[in-house]
């Protein structure tokens, strides 16, 4: 049957270069445009800031730092510090954290077959918050806030996973319930720490919970970039499988994909990049929930395209929000506040205008 059908088809389509009505070119073009927008946004964000430095100076400094000689002696030292040691790592961190949260949001939504899931659903954020709060309140025991946050984020997710695992299977509903249970326990623990903490620690905990890039350094960038990029590549490779998984476990199996194994890998990697991002910059809401939706509106639900474009949109969104956070007022606004204030009305708009087609 197929030989016959294919034969007539090839003859019919001889003149067509691509399969008619099935071209992915438009989507590839949009991916390229998004990448260009992200680079432009980053370039623009580098020039903006509380301390006014001209466009030319900014890029001269960056080029001098990038050049092999690394000769920055004839530049203004203050400029060099602001641009190379403060703004650039901060912009890079915003991109990579945005990409990590948005990617893992897309992966979680696909795996859990639910467009309202966000990366924090399995308790990552509450675990990280507890870890960070411990690090803030007991700095002599937990010497690094970031490492402590990461460890407790991992503990929270592993605990949620163990709660959900029954008879060799991990049903999605119990996994989400497990995440909610563990999340609420850790939130309660954070409240205890807040209640007992002294004023300065309390203030620091509250700031951490709102998320922000204030302390971004090259060290953070060097740790987080390779982890997130590698995980991102693997997740992107799973894009097509994620399409199949979102149809349900049995269908995935009938189409030749081991649902337990694939989901395990996807959820583990998505959780890893979320935990890394959260433990570095605190809890930034909305990016993971919103960017995959925005992407599906532009490119459709095929995860081979949703994952990279969500990542780039996440990067763009956090660059914009963080630039606003550090330039709107004389003191900094925690970026989590801005992402929420911009994000909530957007989701409201989505639900009202495209709710039926997006959420089915």
């Amino acid at each position, binding site marked *: 049957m197929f030989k016959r059908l294919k034969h007539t088809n090839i003859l019919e389509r001889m003149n067509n270069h691509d*399969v008619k*009505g099935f071209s992915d070119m438009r989507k590839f073009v949009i991916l390229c445009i998004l990448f260009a927008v992200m680079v432009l946004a980053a370039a623009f964000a580098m020039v903006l800031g509380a301390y006014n430095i001209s466009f030319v100076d900014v890029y001269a400094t960056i080029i001098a730092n990038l050049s092999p000689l690394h000769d920055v002696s004839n530049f203004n030292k203050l400029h060099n510090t602001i641009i190379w040691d403060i703004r650039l790592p901060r912009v890079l961190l915003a991109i990579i954290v945005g990409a990590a949260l948005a990617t893992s949001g897309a992966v979680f939504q696909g795996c859990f077959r639910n467009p309202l899931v966000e990366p924090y659903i399995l308790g990552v954020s509450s675990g990280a918050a507890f870890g960070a709060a411990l690090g803030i309140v007991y700095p002599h025991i937990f010497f690094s806030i970031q490492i402590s946050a990461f460890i407790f984020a991992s503990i929270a997710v592993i605990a949620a996973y163990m709660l959900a695992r029954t008879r060799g299977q991990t049903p999605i509903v119990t996994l989400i319930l497990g995440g909610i249970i563990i999340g609420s326990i850790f939130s309660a623990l954070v409240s205890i720490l807040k209640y007992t903490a002294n004023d300065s620690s309390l203030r620091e905990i509250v700031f951490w919970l709102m998320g922000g890039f204030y302390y971004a350094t090259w060290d953070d960038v060097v740790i987080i970039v390779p982890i997130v990029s590698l995980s991102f590549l693997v997740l992107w490779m799973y894009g097509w499988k994620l*399409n199949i998984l*979102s149809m349900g476990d049995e*269908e995935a*199996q009938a*189409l030749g994909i081991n649902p337990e194994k694939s989901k395990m890998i996807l959820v583990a990697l998505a959780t890893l990049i979320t935990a890394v991002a959260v433990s570095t910059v605190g809890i930034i809401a909305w990016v993971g929930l919103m960017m995959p939706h925005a992407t599906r509106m532009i490119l*459709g639900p095929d995860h*081979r395209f949703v994952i990279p474009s969500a990542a780039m949109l996440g990067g763009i969104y956090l660059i914009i929000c963080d630039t606003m956070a550090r330039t709107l007022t004389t003191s900094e606004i925690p970026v989590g506040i801005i992402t929420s204030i911009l994000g909530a009305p957007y989701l409201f708009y989505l639900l009202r205008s495209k709710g039926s087609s997006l959420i*089915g």
Partner: protein
Amino acid sequence: MILMLQVEDIHFNYGKNQILKNISFDVEEGLLCGLFGPNGCGKTTLFKCCMKFLKFHKGSVIMDGIDIKKHRIEDMAKVVAYVPQEHKPPFPYLVKEVVLMGRTPHLGGFFGVKRADKEKALNALELLDISHLGEQPYNQLSGGQRQMVLIARAIAQETKLIFLDEPTSALDFSNQMRIWTLLRKVAEQGITILACSHDPNHVTWFCDKVVVMNNNGIISQGAPNHVITETILDEIYQNMCTVRSLDNVKMILPRDVAVKKRLDTKTDARAPN
């Protein structure tokens, strides 16, 4: 004839609750075989055992000469396709994308989908006469259309065997007939089909072979004319059905309706006098 599917002595229980006991049947290549039985008799469970969604405790399933226990999930998908009862996925995939998903077992590489795969997906849509749906979001179609898309996906999967779980249960009369006619068309291409159904008329009219099951297991199998008889129907439905023949087409009627109809005709005949 070559046996495409051999099910031998399957036993399955959920905990202490025995669902399947001593189930054996086989299907020859190129047949449209109906699996017929009342609600709750274990048709779907049997399907899931055959698809390896559930692990059965005893017995064996042999597809195209190979025991499915020896197959990996990836290999199974090249032998048998599964058409679930229609459902809505959470994301608005386009129909052509859903059909393209049928090519998954044959894909490789990073982006995977090749030109030939896209063509096969489009061909499957053409075969089912639903090319016009290609650009529409799958989750906004009607139930009947979705069922057809899932069948197209199974055809794009290019397997020798297709399983359908109650393909017509949620559909109106015209769509039910369309689906069954279509399944006949697919079977004539040499693909073996096993479809479960709880409508005795459908299996009698459209299937080459029927396997009848009730809570005690398989009670009969063979050509529909031999298998769907009043005796068998009485056994599964407790004396509810009457088998009639209308222009040589077998019809299964509820006994009450058949009796009432006969009385009505008698009174009608008497009335003019």
